[in-house]
């Protein structure tokens, strides 16, 4: 933010400035905000003998400048400008109580860097007390409600130092009286802005708030002590990374193009969805038609099974049809084995021994009912590992079978009559146009929560089917 603010103040490229009359005093370098005739202004009244580095700009000039400099639209510029004001980098000369940016002639000045939020100058209670005391002394009754509350609170809290507070307050006021009225006004505005940011009135969001563990208070946070282990690990990781096989950028980037164009028609944000987007028409037919285990999958869905083996397996309906196909080829045990391995890897720790045993009995033991054909080396290693079963003991075997299916069975599946028939029979829903008259809106059907339905053994999602008609 500060970089931006500094750029804005640049005499050559910054926001245009002019001098401004405010009440009876003349504020030097006040910039007004009429519709600027373009061109960063270096013109205007040359710097008068002002002690303050800050100069004035005006609401709409600021918005204009932001729009031009960053090539953004008006709403974004206004938003950005407002944030700058809310964070106290700019303050309005008139009505300084509200930190907001008005895109008109309202004059603004830049906050002096002394008061910038990033200087992390802790807004101490003592300082706040002095500020409030000054306000009170200068003009009785100017303290707003929340300020009065704070004042009394502080009075109780630092009662012992109250003499100091009052003394400081009077001293600062006295020193201020010796300055010119214009400067005095400016300083008062600066201070007011600073406290508006650091002690916002109730209801206004505090822009300084950060999440736990981070934020201005942890800026000086001690970084984690980097032990020997940490560096050893880092070195190991780097050595491994160096040995990694890399693919050239052009290949990788082309892959994105292919993926995006292939999946574009399947992306509701890019291509919409049929019959309609439930969020728009309040009709959940789309979800009913695409439920995880629907009898009649849509055309798009069936087509997606051809994109990659992973996408086929991820879809319960696709996987079921693939299983049927494998059955025709007498190699269904491969997929069943793969599924059992998945269950092992993602299942509960307590089930590991039993599952490993079951898998061995069914798929790996010599003469097993559904023996899977793994190469001898992997089989040997797997069987050896079974003596000490753990979640990953079947990983190698699983990978072998997966690759086998992917390179062999999957391409045949895609060329099979089974798949071709599925594609031909697949549903292409008709579009339901959004009803124009809102009072004819369909009631939004609730759907049974997945938590109500009995969970399937493999922990697969049992999607909530909509009540909508198919």
């Amino acid at each position, binding site marked *: 933010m500060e970089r931006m603010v500094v750029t804005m103040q640049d005499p050559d490229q910054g926001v245009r400035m002019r001098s401004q009359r405010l009440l009876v005093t003349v504020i030097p370098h006040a910039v007004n905000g009429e519709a600027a005739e373009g061109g960063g202004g270096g013109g205007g009244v040359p710097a008068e003998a002002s002690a303050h580095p800050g100069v004035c700009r005006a609401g709409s000039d600021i918005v204009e400048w932001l729009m031009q400099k960053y090539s953004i639209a008006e709403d974004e510029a206004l938003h950005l400008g407002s944030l700058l004001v809310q964070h106290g980098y700019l303050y309005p000369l008139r009505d300084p109580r509200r930190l907001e940016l008005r895109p008109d002639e309202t004059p603004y000045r830049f906050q002096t860097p002394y008061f910038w939020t990033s200087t992390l100058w802790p807004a101490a209670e003592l300082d706040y007390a002095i500020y409030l005391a000054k306000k009170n002394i200068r003009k009785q009754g100017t303290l707003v409600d929340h300020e009065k509350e704070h004042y009394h609170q502080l009075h109780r809290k630092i009662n012992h130092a109250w003499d100091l507070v009052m003394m400081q307050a009077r001293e600062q006021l006295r020193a201020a009286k010796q300055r010119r009225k214009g400067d005095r006004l400016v300083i008062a505005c600066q201070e007011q802005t600073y406290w508006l940011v650091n002690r916002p009135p109730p209801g206004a969001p505090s822009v300084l708030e950060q999440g736990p563990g981070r934020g201005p208070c942890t800026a000086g946070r001690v970084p984690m002590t980097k032990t020997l282990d940490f560096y050893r690990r880092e070195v190991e990781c780097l050595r491994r990374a160096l040995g990694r096989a890399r693919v050239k950028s052009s290949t990788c980037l082309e892959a*994105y193009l292919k993926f995006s164009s292939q999946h574009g028609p399947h992306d509701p944000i890019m291509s919409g969805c049929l019959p309609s987007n439930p*969020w728009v028409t309040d009709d959940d037919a789309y979800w009913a038609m695409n439920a995880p285990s629907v009898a009649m999958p849509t055309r798009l869905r069936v087509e997606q099974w051809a994109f990659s083996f992973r996408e086929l397996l991820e879809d319960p309906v696709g996987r079921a049809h693939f299983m049927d196909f494998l059955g025709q080829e007498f190699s269904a045990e491969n997929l069943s084995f793969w599924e059992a391995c998945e269950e092992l890897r993602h299942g509960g720790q307590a089930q590991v021994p039993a599952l490993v045993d079951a898998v061995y009995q069914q798929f790996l033991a010599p003469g097993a009912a559904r023996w899977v054909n793994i190469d001898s080396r992997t089989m040997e290693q797997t069987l050896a590992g079974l003596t000490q079963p753990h979640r990953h003991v079947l990983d190698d075997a699983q990978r072998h079978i997966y690759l086998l299916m992917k390179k062999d069975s999957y391409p045949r599946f895609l060329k099979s009559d089974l798949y071709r028939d599925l594609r031909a029979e697949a549903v292409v829903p008709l579009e339901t146009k959004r009803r124009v008259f809102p009072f004819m809106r369909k009631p939004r059907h609730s759907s049974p929560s997945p938590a109500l339905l009995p969970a399937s053994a493999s922990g697969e999602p049992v999607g909530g089917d909509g009540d909508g008609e198919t």
Partner: protein
Amino acid sequence: MAADGLHENETLASLKSEAESLKGKLEEERAKLHDVELHQVAERVEALGQFVMKTRRTLKGHGNKVLCMDWCKDKRRLVSSSQDGKVIVWDSFTTNKEHAVTMPCTWVMACAYAPSGCAIACGGLDNKCSVYPLTFDKNENMAAKKKSVAMHTNYLSACSFTNSDMQILTASGDGTCALWDVESGQLLQSFHGHGADVLCLDLAPSETGNTFVSGGCDKKAMVWDMRSGQCVQAFETHESDINSVRYYPSGDAFASGSDDATCRLYDLRADREVAIYSKESIIFGASSVDFSLSGRLLFAGYNDYTINVWDVLKGSRVSILFGHENRVSTLRVSPDGTAFCSGSWDHTLRVKHFRVTNEAEIWVE
């Protein structure tokens, strides 16, 4: 002994310098295969046309800042958590609240929906991750069946179920990630390597399903092997904390959002950063990122209360969305890509519909 002490100091310094030189070599290696930039390749892709955006649901009910949210696989339910300890499960289609739990701690920064839809996990300043089975039994208090699964030594920043309800992956302010068995609470694997708080994680949609990426306050994004606990790849190009990481739908890349006001795309096969999504006018940090289903668009929520939508391939910004009155803390696209939900410090969650259109289409709103 003095001699041993010296030995240790030398090892520390020499390790540090070795790490630095290896990093340099790694950058050299990575640069060798970089023959083209993404935006050059993307020149032949058609630019995106007009778009429409409308907030379709506003979920009000949290009395405080919304910090995190996650969709259920049924594409309409979601869980959200907030600063005051409340965790709420909504059917966002009807906007009904279905479950609500009050955690014994504040700043619940992480929440996740189980794949089966039967449970949720959440945690925050209590340094733990707890799993609550969802029950509709009116006589049962949800808090009674709560399972304390993960134990860290600092706040929990992110959590996610793996492919089933029975394992949870967590990230913490103590600089580590960990994989836990839900039933027993047993630690299955821990992941050390970040030099500061870990703020986010995402599981890879890869075929072998064995890696995940994490981002932290040390500006590093690290890819981990879940089986061995080792770091497989690391990327250190951000200039500030990484708040959010999300895999590209193909699993070959991931995006990150950071306090340095940029989002970046890292390709895993090329092993490098391949795109930066930034604009001079964006000066606030990105808190949360997610891709549309086809990976063409990247939605990013920022601390300046806006959401910027980026064209992933061309690197340009498609749109800026206003609507929240305080910073956007969490953003997720729904599982079937029909909408996305953003949660904010303004206490609300908004489900928004976004659609890229052709100019020929007449959109009846």
